[in-house]
């Protein structure tokens, strides 16, 4: 898998915006390579000014202990790349196949739309029975009911594709993930990634901010939407 597991591929799809594909193999513990692949995709997506769609092909789970040479500095760089992906001015779609853990799970959890193959499993435990205490634990805590995440965090385990869908960690389980991905790309291609990023941030902040603090930002976003609509209605 050397060199192949961390490929960032840039696929131009005429008329539908540009689809950028990042493959993250969770069995591969080299966070440096994963970080470079995600950063390259983010660079390209940001340069496409809202017209990109980023697809994360997430597969593989760590077989045992974490790779040697792992440091908190590398974990921090990886998290910076994930955070960039999480705030990207582009729709992001994950496709999980087979066992999906480690870095592959990290990447899946920052995406907007998630598709899982029927045999996919989200593998939560990576250190014996314990889950790695990185920011995926934080994201799971925001995305899952408290009881579920506590059990997962403390006792690890794996979720089947259907269980993950029932918990809304993935949004679709498909026997043909490629076809499901193509349909998802068609669905999101019409929207602007920059405007999606505005709405994504509003929904993210709504989980932790009170009404009074949220109001001003939502009004500013409404103003932005009205200005864009007016600009589109008036030919230059």
């Amino acid at each position, binding site marked *: 898998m050397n060199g192949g597991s961390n*490929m*960032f*591929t*840039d*696929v*131009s799809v005429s008329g539908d915006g540009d689809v950028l594909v990042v493959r993250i193999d969770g069995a591969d513990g080299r966070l440096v390579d994963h970080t*470079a*692949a995600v*950063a*390259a995709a*983010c*660079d390209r997506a*940001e*340069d496409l000014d809202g017209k990109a769609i980023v697809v994360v092909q997430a597969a593989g789970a760590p077989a045992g202990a974490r790779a040697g040479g792992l440091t908190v500095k590398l974990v921090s760089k990886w998290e910076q790349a994930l955070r*960039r992906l999480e*705030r990207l*001015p582009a729709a992001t779609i994950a496709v999980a196949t087979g066992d999906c853990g480690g870095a592959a799970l990290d990447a899946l959890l920052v995406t907007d739309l998630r598709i899982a193959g029927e045999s996919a499993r989200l593998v939560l435990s990576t250190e014996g029975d314990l889950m790695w205490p990185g920011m995926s634990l934080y994201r799971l805590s925001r995305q899952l009911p408290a009881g579920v995440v506590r059990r997962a965090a403390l006792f690890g385990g794996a979720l089947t594709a259907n269980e993950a869908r029932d918990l809304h960690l993935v949004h679709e389980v498909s026997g043909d993930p490629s076809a499901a991905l193509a349909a998802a790309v068609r669905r999101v291609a019409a929207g602007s990634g*920059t405007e999606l*990023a*505005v709405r994504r*941030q509003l929904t993210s*902040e709504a989980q932790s*901010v009170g009404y*009074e603090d949220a109001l*001003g*930002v939502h*009004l*500013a*976003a409404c*103003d*932005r939407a009205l*200005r864009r609509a007016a600009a589109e209605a008036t030919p230059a």
Partner: protein
Amino acid sequence: MTLTLNAPAPHALSAARHETVVPDAQIIGVGTAVTDMSYTQQELLDMFRIADPKVRSVFGNSAIERRHLTVPPLNADGTFAEERQGALLQKHKKLAVEMGADALRASLADAGITLSAIDYLCCVTSTGFLTPGLTALLIRELGIDPSCHRADVVGMGCNAGLNGLNATANWAKANPGRVAVMVCAEACSAAYVMDSTMRTAVVNSLFGDGAAAIALMAPATGGEAAFDGPRVLSFASHIITDAFDAMRYDWDDEQNKFSFFLDPEIPYVVGAHAEQVVDRLLSGAGLRRGAVKHWLVHSGGKKVIDAVRVNLGLTRHDLRHTTGVLRDYGNLSSGSFLFSYQRLLRERIVAPGDYGVLMTMGPGSTIETVLVQW
């Protein structure tokens, strides 16, 4: 077409290194100053006996907790005396000199240099008119060398700190090894009108008194930089001429005073133009927005901070100092962004190579930006 990138481009493009022959000016010290007395919004409403629920609501929803102000003298009956324009100008002169001198001294102490090192002084103020200007007053007050070069930036409003910085940084760059200082001193309690209109209520709920100063120097020719402050790389400006009258400070014949006006729509107008200015600033340096680690935006008011944040895709954390300075001081006009800059430095999180964007907004309507790198 399928294209595989084997060697991903670095996050910051190589064109952004700014390895020029002439070294850029560096910010080598910062200082701030306020007056002794500060008041909560509630205390001000009570002191001025403001009962109108609409006005109380404007104060309550300002995202400001406290402001430093010099309130008018009291009449015998305990009410505040009316300050006429002449008294307000005197008040501005006194406060601007006192706060400006304190901020200037603090910026030099931060840089580890003395008053005798100053070769260029730029003073920025909009809350009063002074002739001779604030530079002359501070040179006399502090005993700065009378041969010091100087410039006064007067009446440009809240954005003027970056207009002043542009001139100051360029002077420093053109004169390597010599110290240039910029002082922003605003006595907002000398620039108010009290009547029953919402126009004045909004203004009176917002501004506070304060001054800030920064010292700049470019490394002497052939020498190494002796300071670890950020280099001032480039500026981008924009004036929204469609919104020319939306923010103004002009004469009110009925009140016989200068009066400030803020159009309720102006925060959104500024927010809508923020992207194009910032993108111009960054594209000139070959940088993406994500490469900027530190954002220091003028604490103009809750609405404009929200609008800038949404339009630039910034998080609450990105603008923590902007909102923190607004909460603790109100809108300090031209020096406000330097209070945020000082708070950022006190966090001790900036690292060599980090990029920062400083952004101010004001009348015109104007957006000023500068790119710095540690």
